[in-house]
């Protein structure tokens, strides 16, 4: 009601946040969407919204589209209530706001270009490096048996380079996490407890809120026929399996002294292959879904970012699987360079692209789980 404009200490800093604030006032007076996902109950716990609250709600939204198709005030209605698109815009702005270092905020503006350049630079670096280091007989030679990859690049150099870029990505993401959590959390509130964390892990792991409140999410129109949850599972768990493959291989190398490449039945290859297939089908499905999406619901401005991240995942698995299939042929040298280049680009751009959505959304789910358990509710129940 009333209170919304008056009790806020500071005005919303961005247009998207101001629009979100307008919608939250409408949604809070209506509440029909309360059962669809976590966003609306979280909204009802507040009567006025600070910028951090809006960023929290935006990252809590999984963009299932149900509230757009269920809303009697959605466009063309004059109230123009479009929650998924507005929150998508706030989300992208929030990635920019919490990025570390702050100077990299601009990378989100033309993210497709930035990620493509990083990928191209990664590939060029490795192909160029291999070519400069070796004569063509090594680069285009056929290598077999343990240590075949390291004839092209010494293991120590590979580990150092990827360890460094991975560590950098971790630090940059951690700094963003810190800024986001500070902004959305109530001052003085206890830190996240184990039960809230576990609840959030289950909610994120099952994509509980990407299902339109139970029937499946809506993408093209009001029919809840969308398969995005499945494709996202393939992508996410495919990514985790690939990550597990790399971890196992690292342990093999340092603990057991077993050197890559490994035979096809060995754990790193099995994990990487299954994960790689998931990481092929999942992103392809998500890209196709994005093409079919109802334009009114999507934020056109984040299209480049979505596409870039999905394309990077797709390229990672594609080059990885190609390397697996052709590792005994003269193409191995070049394929290894391309694969390493893509993975390098992926790691380097992780803090500056769509990857961070998973991190912030998880944190929002932790916060939501905690405030649900706390029974935090500021609204009078007036019949």
């Amino acid at each position, binding site marked *: 009601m009333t209170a919304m404009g008056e009790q806020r200490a500071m005005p919303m800093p961005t247009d998207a946040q101001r629009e979100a604030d307008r919608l939250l006032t*409408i949604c809070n007076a209506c509440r029909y969407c309360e059962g669809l996902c976590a966003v609306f109950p979280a909204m009802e716990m507040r009567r006025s919204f600070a910028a951090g609250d809006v960023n929290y709600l935006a990252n809590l939204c999984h963009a299932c589209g149900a509230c757009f198709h269920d809303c*009697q005030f959605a466009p063309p209605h004059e109230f123009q209530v479009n929650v998924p698109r507005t929150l998508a815009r706030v989300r992208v702005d929030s990635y920019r706001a919490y990025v570390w270092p702050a100077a990299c905020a601009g990378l989100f503006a033309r993210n497709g270009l930035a990620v493509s350049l990083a990928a191209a630079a990664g590939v060029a670096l490795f192909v160029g490096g291999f070519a400069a280091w070796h004569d063509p007989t090594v680069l285009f030679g056929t290598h077999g048996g343990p240590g075949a990859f390291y004839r092209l690049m010494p293991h120590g150099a590979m580990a150092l380079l990827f360890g460094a870029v991975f560590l950098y990505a971790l630090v940059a993401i951690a700094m963003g996490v810190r800024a986001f959590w500070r902004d959305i959390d109530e001052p003085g509130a206890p830190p996240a407890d184990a039960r809230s964390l576990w609840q959030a892990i289950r909610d994120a792991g099952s994509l509980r809120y990407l299902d339109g409140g139970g029937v499946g999410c809506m993408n093209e129109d009001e029919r809840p026929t969308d398969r995005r949850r499945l494709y996202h599972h393939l992508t996410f768990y495919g990514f985790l399996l690939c990550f597990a493959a790399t971890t196992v291989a690292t342990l093999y190398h340092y603990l057991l002294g077993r050197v890559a490449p490994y035979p096809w039945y060995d754990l790193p290859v099995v994990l990487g292959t299954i994960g790689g297939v998931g990481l092929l089908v999942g992103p392809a499905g998500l890209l196709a879904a994005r093409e079919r999406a109802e334009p009114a619901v999507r934020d056109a401005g984040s299209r480049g970012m979505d596409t870039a991240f999905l394309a990077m995942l797709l390229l990672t698995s594609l080059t990885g699987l190609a390397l697996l299939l052709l590792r005994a042929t003269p193409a191995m040298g070049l394929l290894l360079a391309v694969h390493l280049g893509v993975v390098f680009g992926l790691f380097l751009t992780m803090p500056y692209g769509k990857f961070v959505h998973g991190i912030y959304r998880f944190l929002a789910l932790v916060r939501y789980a905690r405030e649900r358990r706390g029974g935090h509710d500021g609204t009078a129940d007036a019949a």
Partner: protein
Amino acid sequence: MVDLARRYDVLVVGGGNAALCAAIAARRGGASVLVLEAAPKFYRGGNTRHTRNMRCAHDSATQHLTGPYLEDEFWDDLKRVTQGHTDEELARFMIARSKEMLGWIAEQGVRFQPSLGGTLSLGRTNSFFLGGGRAMLNALYLTAATLGVDVLYDAEVVDLAIEDGMFLSAAVRRDGAVVDVRAAALVAAAGGFEANIEWLKKYWGEAAENFLIRGTPYNRGTLLRLLLGKGVQEVGDPTQCHAVAIDARSPRFDGGIITRLDCVVFGIVVNRQARRFYDEGEDFWPKRYAIWGRLIAGQPGQIAYIVFDAKSLRMFMPSLYPAIRADSLPELGGKLGIDGEALAATVAAFNAAVRPGTFDHTELDDCRTEGLSPPKSHWARRIDEAPFYAYPVRPGITFTYLGTRVDREARILMQGGAPSANMFAAGEIMAGNVLGRGYAAGVGMTIGSVFGRVAGEQAARRVRN
């Protein structure tokens, strides 16, 4: 593609809950069905798009309902809210049938959830649609499409061919042309005339120009007017409509639920002469909200102002527009465009009449005025804590009571009393049979679902025989 040249088994006119329940039931009964919705696709569904629950009898608590709501209690509630203006046989029939509606509606793809925040008082009796009325409509339309029901939007019925109580065809205006559509049976489910200002003026005069319509501009009552003009027996008081107090700043049409104001009991209500005109604390708000539209319609300019102070600001559900705020009462009056000194005097007189008491908005408390006319019987607290607030309010028309008389097979009765051979009615267009006056939350949807399903089944049966 919809083929208007063919003769459908059942023609359903309307596009809301009742129409879709009828269409689905008729189709499941083996009939070919065409639905004609006058509104464009986005605005389909009449008042259903603004609903959020339905009231069905049930013998025990369910996943979403907190306790039993037996048929007799439902009947008592209906008798009370209508003050006896109901057809007991039809009403009891509807209540009995409502028990199986929750399951039937769920089978058509509609999903339920526990009562929404701020509606705890309905948690036992009313089943809330997950995602609200438009979500319910989406589910029903999806099911209808899957079953092979044909639907046309922007298709208003502008004339009917009826012979000796027998429906022959409907003239449909579509893309500027008028086409005749034939069918073996008609289900009239096209609602009331609440958005037809000219029609409302017939009973309310120029005051109707100041009414706000809570639903879409497409609820014009065209089909109702056609039927009543062709020998169909009418039911319900034509002059009455369900009118609540909504924010005067709302759009003329389709402001829906978010423009409602639940704060009358916390303050006083004055007209544009800054005078009070009714007991704001007569009874609990859910029992009184529906009289305020008519009360305001009786005031000059059809406008009034709910005035309260800082201590009440957070005691009610938020609404769309912010309250108008001022540091003093004369200033508040100025912002409202009424005489500020007169407002201050009215509040001063009210404050002086307030007796000491213990304020409790959850019960009929002992905070009341003495020696004031009209009195405020409960929840009367001095308005003396700045800042002061006000909401301007106008009558918001939800639905009308005039309708077509039906029997328990949902068959339309002709003047003279004989049932039509092949015309049925369901939903708001016949709600006056069971709801001749007043309202209880969710009853409109019960009427629509129960009689919609009955109408569809009976129409399909009639066609098959």
